[in-house]
């Protein structure tokens, strides 16, 4: 009979292998799905994983999807490590786009490039502010951050709809809910001529290093990690829980806001209700698949972008619905979580060893005692 036995030390090998195994299993299911839908599985897989990498244009599309996913995921790595479940990054992303657009629509022919910086900053601050609401309600009223941040996503969507249908609507836009197209001065500079790739990806990669250093080389990062792993130990050490809460959420909100700002002033070039593409949610998967590690998140963001583009390609070339992407994303996360069990547990054959439950209970010896034999 199969049994799961907890490991004494988490297996580092499995920790790295687990996302790869999950990916492999997802691919297997993908193949089966393609066959079931009557499509050539090899063609389907190549849509997702080969086509986007074959051309410069494909790579540039990859980069403009990777940048926002990675930026948001970096913030989520920090939050999840602190045991703060900022599920509403999508809302902070939207606010970032709104903030940047608010500045961008004021550009005139004579505006300098500095306006872009202002717009990006504004977007970052708006994202931060949206996250600050979550932080405040959690800090002051102990309101669960998952539900609050999620509700704020719906509110953000309504806010977006309001600004593009009302005060910021393009008067020449045939009454569509959208703003004017932004002038070149406030567009993110291009990276490669003739493609949509912009410097956003460079910014994101730079921030990968910054966040890594923060998490693993600073005391502040250490404090966040301890707070996320053992709140009582953090209290004993004197690490402020409130301070950790604000730091993580504001950082996450800022990064998501920045991503939104870059999206609005970058590939999209205007603010519409179609701007939010679910990157805030996709980034959750990126963060997990990347093991909550900035470098892992980079690889995972590329993978996720492949899935997004693949979805678009299979829609145009194979006639499959674009939402196939989300099926694969969800599946990947599920399989990752299942595989992760083997990081902390070992598979064993044999009779189950029923054991007396161990403490805590009243008058229990502290964990780490030698009470009895296993």
């Amino acid at each position, binding site marked *: 009979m199969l*049994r*799961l*036995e*907890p490991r004494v030390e988490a297996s580092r090998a499995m920790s790295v292998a687990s996302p790869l195994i999950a990916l492999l299993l997802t691919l297997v299911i993908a193949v089966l799905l393609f066959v079931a839908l009557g499509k050539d599985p090899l063609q389907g897989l190549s849509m997702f994983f080969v086509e986007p990498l074959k051309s410069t244009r494909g790579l540039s599309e990859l980069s403009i999807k990777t940048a926002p996913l990675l930026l948001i995921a970096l913030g989520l790595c920090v939050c999840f490590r602190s045991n703060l*479940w900022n*599920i509403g990054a999508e809302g902070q992303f939207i606010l970032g786009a709104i903030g940047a657009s608010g500045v961008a629509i004021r550009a005139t022919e004579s505006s300098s490039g500095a306006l872009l910086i202002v717009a990006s900053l504004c977007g970052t601050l708006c994202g931060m502010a949206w996250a600050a609401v979550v932080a405040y*309600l959690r800090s002051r*009223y*102990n*309101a*669960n951050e*998952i*539900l*609050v941040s*999620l*509700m*704020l996503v*719906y*509110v953000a969507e*309504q*806010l977006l*709809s*309001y600004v593009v*249908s*009302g005060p910021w609507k393009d008067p020449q836009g045939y009454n569509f809910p959208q703003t004017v197209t932004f002038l070149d001065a406030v567009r993110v500079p291009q990276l490669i001529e003739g493609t949509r790739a912009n410097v956003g990806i460079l910014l994101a990669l730079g921030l990968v290093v910054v966040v890594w250093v923060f998490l693993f080389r600073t005391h502040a990062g250490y404090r966040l990690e301890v707070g996320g792993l053992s709140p009582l130990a953090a209290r004993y050490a004197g690490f402020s829980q409130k301070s950790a809460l604000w730091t993580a959420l504001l950082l996450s909100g800022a990064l998501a806001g920045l991503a939104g700002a870059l999206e609005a002033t970058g590939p999209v070039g205007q603010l519409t209700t179609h701007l939010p593409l679910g990157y805030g*949610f996709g980034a*959750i*998967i990126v963060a*997990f698949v990347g093991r909550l590690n900035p470098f892992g998140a980079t690889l995972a963001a590329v993978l996720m972008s492949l899935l997004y583009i693949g979805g678009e390609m299979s829609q145009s070339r194979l006639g499959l*619905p674009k*939402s*196939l*992407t*989300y*099926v*694969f*994303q*969800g*599946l990947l*996360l*599920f399989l990752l*979580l*299942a595989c*992760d*069990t083997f990081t*902390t*547990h070992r598979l064993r054959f044999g009779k*189950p*060893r*029923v*054991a*007396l*439950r*161990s403490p805590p*209970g009243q008058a229990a010896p502290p964990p780490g005692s030698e009470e009895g034999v296993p």
Partner: protein
Amino acid sequence: MNLNELALLFAASINSGTPIALAALGLLINERSGVLNLGAEGLMLVAAVTGFATAVHTHSDFLALLAGVAAGAVLALFFALLVIYLNTNQYATGLALSLFGAGFSAFVGVPYASESLGERTQFTLPGLSKLPVLGPALFSFHPLVYLTVLLSLAFSWFLFRARSGLVLRAIGESPESAHALGYPVRRIRVSAVMAGGALCGLAGAYVSVVYTPLWIEGMIAGKGWIALALTAFATWRPARVLLGAYLFGGVTMLQLHLQGQGVNLPIQLLTALPYLATILVLVLISRNSAWIRSNMPAALGKPFHPGA
């Protein structure tokens, strides 16, 4: 607003609150056993599309609702196996379920986006529904609405009077102690999660088959999340869940009514009202953390290791 309009508003609130109530009752059973299922939204979406598709193909509302229940139960079983037997993180797994459910329902629902279900039956209680004011207010509901009320009563009795309900509460408080006493904790938890999933499924199918009989991607629009908040708001008591759900229904109906009245507020603000109300509710209930802790199933969200 005259009495008749009030009665209709009241009835509409009950109608609107019913799917939230059903989902929240399901989540309540879930959480009483100590398992937190953040995948409620995904479950409801998949059940909604399943129910709708079944209705389109079989023209039977009953089968459609049943299909929704089955879809919810199956997904919940999958979730339960991961979380209870493989001990995966309950938060992450629930989120994965929500994300997957959103994507999967969107994918499967594409061919049904423009379908309609034809004339919907108007359910009325014979005789009683003809009563002035009270008729439209209380006696013209879909059977599922009455079922929800009955379920709420049944759950109250179950949790506080029946031995098996006591066992469930015990498991939610201290699975280790229940295990030491010889109860099959994991098996009972799986049953509770499946029951919860089945009810979420019923709620989802109700929305797409009865309430607004069509399929739109993402049509659950956060009701699953609101149901999660509601369970906590109601301190895990069935009667309070019902009340809270109807209040939410009321808020939703109120904002639609205000929109209809041409009130000088942006539509988007009114649409955002239920979500803002949820945040308010969360703030109100969470303020006193000691009170929450003394009412919450103590082991909620924590993994259980029988052999540890």
